[in-house]
């Protein structure tokens, strides 16, 4: 029996491989296992190979192992592309309907399973996925009952007949396994504690975080790997009185949420690199007019269209410094699916407290990888709408951009009597009217640029210390694999992640850079973006080192461990 297990399921893209993997993960999560997933898919709809690697175990992990113990191959390509990932005691189970007419190293253990055959026998080749799921479950030691309820759930909208057919498939699979697969008992998972947990990907958690934070409007344009945020909210928002719109482009999206947010509704959009580039002008308008907006950027490999279905963390520095002219913004970088939920809630608060654009910077692995998550507590973060103008307080004339001690001025929402004012992307005076006098300009620039300064004093870096003098620092989904490497390393180093990059928590960083001899910044991009930002603000060039990867794939455990080798 195994405390954990890595397996890979592969097949022809568009034929249900991924959804089979997700159903399996759901079943495992509901049985108390923690799963984590890594996907390999191409930017085409049907055809080509697609594969999903699943790590399942009784402990929570945010990475998959570099090697897998089991491969379930529903097409030839899966065998060809992935056999080299097999651990020395690993096994490839393949659909007996495949021909496998190519050579493989002799040591590779290949076991045929009647996946298609059983599906066909029960009525339809289409049920091949159910059949495959049955086989994997049987191998992992999940009972027929548990799988059956997962399958019922999956097909609940498809009607009795379909459900029953699928159940028949499962029955036959389990019977076959009972009779023929006894020798693979070793593949079984240690029984888990039966606490049923949700399975989610980052984009799901972001959508729920938005809903819980009181977001009631999203305007968005589809793009991989961000579309699910819009899709989820298209379902959820109308049920909570909100509105979700797919609009003509990203420029419309950002300007529409500026309008909606100015109008008093917590509003957001979600996009990836190309859309973000198009939004730059609108983001500057939000910065200049001090309008709170929340933008999710699920990063993918750039530049340009790049590799739309591959992972990268390369929009960071463009966001940090980008746009014409200068305006404040906030960048949050969640490191787990749960974190996506809380960071999104926090993003809406920060946007209204500091009246500026807030970016929730995710990445493809984070946004699209399913994870078993611990219970989410929406009430952990209280909704804080920031300074709002209260009518009829007998105040003097309302000034939208009043110079205040903390550089933040109360917002009057349209509709509020007594709060009439003008808003413009031109430089303006305290009342909001255009003004080009140098003195006013200085005051207004100072006000805007300084208002987020208090955040620099926050503690935004979370470190797991082993009392070593080398720190591995990262952000986003990259953290998971570093944690993984450190957990299995004999001599783990200190490691941590940064959850807000802008404003940069300079106080804490300075302490960290003073304390450690070396800080290795690990990120998925070419130009060492986080390292560059930190260097530009704080120096310490001789202490800061970079480990980067920009080939479209996340770091592997081995890559981290190799790098660690140089620092021990």
């Amino acid at each position, binding site marked *: 029996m195994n405390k954990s297990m890595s397996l890979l399921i592969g097949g022809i893209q568009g034929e249900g491989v991924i959804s089979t993997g997700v159903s399996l993960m759901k079943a495992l999560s509901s049985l108390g296992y923690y799963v984590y997933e890594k996907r390999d898919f191409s930017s085409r709809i049907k055809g080509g190979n697609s594969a999903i690697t699943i790590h399942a175990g009784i402990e929570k992990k945010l990475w998959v192992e570099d090697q897998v113990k089991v491969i379930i191959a529903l097409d030839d390509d899966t065998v060809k592309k992935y056999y080299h990932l097999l651990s020395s005691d690993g096994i490839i189970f393949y659909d007996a309907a495949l021909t496998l007419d190519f050579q493989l190293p002799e040591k590779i253990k290949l076991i045929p399973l009647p996946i298609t055959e059983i599906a066909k026998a029960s009525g339809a080749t289409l049920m091949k996925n159910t059949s495959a799921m049955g086989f994997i479950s049987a191998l992992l030691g999940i009972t027929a009952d548990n799988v059956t309820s997962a399958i019922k759930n999956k097909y609940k909208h498809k009607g009795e007949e379909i459900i029953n057919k699928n159940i028949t498939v499962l029955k036959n699979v389990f019977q076959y396994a009972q009779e023929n697969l006894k020798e693979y008992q070793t593949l079984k998972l240690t029984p888990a504690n039966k606490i049923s947990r949700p399975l989610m990907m980052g984009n799901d958690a972001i959508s729920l975080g938005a809903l819980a934070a009181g977001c009631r409007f999203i305007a968005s344009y589809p793009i991989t790997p961000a579309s699910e945020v819009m899709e989820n909210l298209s379902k959820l928002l109308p049920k909570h009185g909100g509105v979700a*719109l797919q609009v003509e482009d990203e420029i419309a999206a950002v300007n529409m949420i500026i309008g*909606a*947010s100015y109008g008093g509704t917590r509003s957001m959009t979600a996009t990836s690199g190309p859309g973000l580039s198009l939004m730059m002008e609108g983001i500057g308008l939000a910065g200049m007019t001090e309008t709170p907006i929340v933008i999710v950027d699920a990063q993918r490999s750039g530049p340009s269209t790049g590799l739309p279905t591959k992972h990268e963390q390369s929009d960071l520095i463009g966001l940090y410094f980008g746009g014409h002219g200068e305006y404040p913004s906030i960048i949050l970088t969640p490191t787990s699916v749960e974190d996506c939920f809380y960071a999104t809630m926090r993003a809406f608060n920060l946007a209204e407290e500091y009246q500026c654009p807030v970016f929730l910077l995710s990445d493809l692995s984070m946004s699209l990888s399913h994870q078993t998550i611990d219970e989410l507590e929406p009430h952990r973060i209280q909704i804080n709408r920031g300074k709002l103008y209260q009518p009829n307080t007998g105040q003097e004339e309302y000034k939208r951009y009043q110079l205040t001690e903390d550089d933040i001025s109360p917002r009057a929402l349209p509709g509020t009597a007594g709060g009439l004012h003008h808003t413009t992307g031109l430089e303006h005076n305290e009342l909001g009217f255009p003004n080009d006098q140098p003195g006013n300009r200085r005051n207004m620039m100072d006000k805007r640029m300084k208002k987020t300064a208090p955040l620099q004093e926050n503690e935004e870096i979370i470190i797991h210390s082993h009392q070593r003098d080398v720190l591995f620092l990262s952000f986003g989904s990259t953290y998971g694999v570093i944690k993984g490497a450190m957990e299995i390393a004999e001599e783990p180093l200190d490691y941590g992640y940064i959850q807000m990059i802008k404003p940069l928590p300079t106080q804490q960083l300075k302490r960290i850079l003073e304390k450690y001899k070396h800080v290795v910044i690990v990120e998925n991009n070419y130009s060492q973006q986080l390292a560059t930002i930190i260097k530009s603000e704080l120096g310490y060039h001789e202490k800061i080192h970079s480990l980067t990867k920009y080939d479209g794939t996340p770091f592997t455990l081995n890559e981290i461990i190799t790098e660690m080798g140089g620092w021990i």
Partner: protein
Amino acid sequence: MTNIKDYDNNITPNWCPGCGHFSIQRALQVVASRLEIPNEKMMVVSGIGCSGRISGYMNTYSFHGIHGRSLPIAQGIKASNKDLTVIAAGGDGDGFAIGLSHTLHAIRRNMNVTYIVLNNQIYGLTKGHTSPLSEVGFQTKSTPTGSLENPIRPGIVALSNGITFLGQGFSAYQEQLIDTIVKAVQHDGFSLVNVFSPCVTYNKINTYQWFREHLVKLDEDEGYNPQDYQMAMNKLIETDGLCTGIIYQNEGTPSLLEQLQPKDASALSKMDLQLSKDHFNSIINQYR
């Protein structure tokens, strides 16, 4: 009727003396007073251009956005708070060059927003460049030997894209303009009012005089029926777009927000944002 002056914020517009945009500003103020819109319930959103400055002269909530994006901003505000009367306004460059896509998509989206085009067939603010609404042969610094591109005819394009309210006006025909905008604001759905608004400084062709000679007033044509789509299309083709009044109105189509939110629903901006624990759990359970 409230006082017209109530809608003026006493800032002197920075338009050139004689600019057509003055009359449109005044018309908007008269419309507000005729419809007795409480100042704080009125929202004027504009783009960038001489035209874009209009929002800064209204004693209402006002948002002067970026070039070409008045409509996305205005639609966002309306979606956010349906209780506001939302007017978007901008120049011909704003709405038909850089913002053309938003204009046509706003038409299809059919939210209850009124869009007023301050159309001088030129870029005023950049000191006289050719606009997509400039006539063939129009000479400016960017087309020194005359524009070669077919001008867009806003009315025809709007109509062919399924607009539910189309009006046109002329800065010098105040009463008609006011009437048209009143009807546009009252229309439940997207309304576009294309106003011929001479740029006295840079457009020496399409002057007040020129418009007086070329425009046809539809409200003086007894047989004209703005409910008739085909008649509207024919009239626009026949006059080459040079007609004023209510050109077309389709009262049958419900506006977008009406379809998205029940009539008695609260505006998004006024909703209770707390999510009950039960509710949250029921959502989470779909992920199990």
